[in-house]
């Protein structure tokens, strides 16, 4: 799954720590999501989208490899 959290953060000019605080998670979590190392829950995805005032689809995008089991 690709995500554009880093880009959105840059647009809004907030750090990983600030975003983490806004959605009630640790900094490590935001970092792991940005690096594509962790597949986040639906609830957290919706929260992050809400913070950026965007639709979830604009921030998170499925990749070909996600369909392989």
């Amino acid at each position, binding site marked *: 799954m690709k995500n554009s959290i880093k880009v959105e953060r840059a647009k809004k000019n907030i*750090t*990983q720590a600030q975003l*983490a605080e806004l959605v*009630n*998670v*640790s*900094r*490590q*979590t935001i*970092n*792991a*999501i*940005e*690096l594509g190392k*962790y597949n*986040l*829950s639906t609830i*957290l995805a919706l929260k992050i989208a809400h913070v950026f005032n965007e639709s979830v689809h604009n921030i998170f995008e499925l990749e070909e490899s996600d369909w392989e089991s």
Partner: protein
Amino acid sequence: MLVVVFICISGVDKLNVIYTCLYVMYICHYDIFALHLCHNFKSIIMKTNYLFPNRFKKIGWLLFIPGIILGVLCLIDQSGISFFDIKVIAIIAEQSIFSDASFFSILENNVLDEISSILLIIGALLIAFSKEKTEDEFISKIRLESLVWATYINYAILIFAIIFIYDMTFLWVLVFNMFTLLVFFLIRFNWALYKSKNQISNEE
């Protein structure tokens, strides 16, 4: 049961009947209180994923470190400090290794090893299963992975010991094995947390 016994003993004395009624009411109230407690307890458990609040981590260390010190003391001084020789209630105990077991006896025992192992186990449980400052889904994932990893490593070592280690030394392996699962979990979990924290400082 208790109430019935109480009535039997008290006979038909009026004052005693009043006391009995009060006692029954007291028990009923206690039951309602217990039901409330059970209900609240259920909702608490469902919210916390069976983890303790963050402040219990400190208490865990306060128990774990004395546990280690006493444990090492036990290993160094096998005969034991006589201060800790007290009478204990044993559900099952043998007088010597090859004699028959006796049930529910009272015997004298050096309780230093008992104290240290209880401190170690409760301390390690509290450290391992207290929430992190921000316990979120990613940390829960690390926690689960570490627990699975620690269980595999622990039993891999145990299987190795079963095959290659015998007699009294194997008994010592079993003694250490009581604590190694939690210790392996603690090492792996904190290492994974440290690694993910370190990654941040590299990124920014």
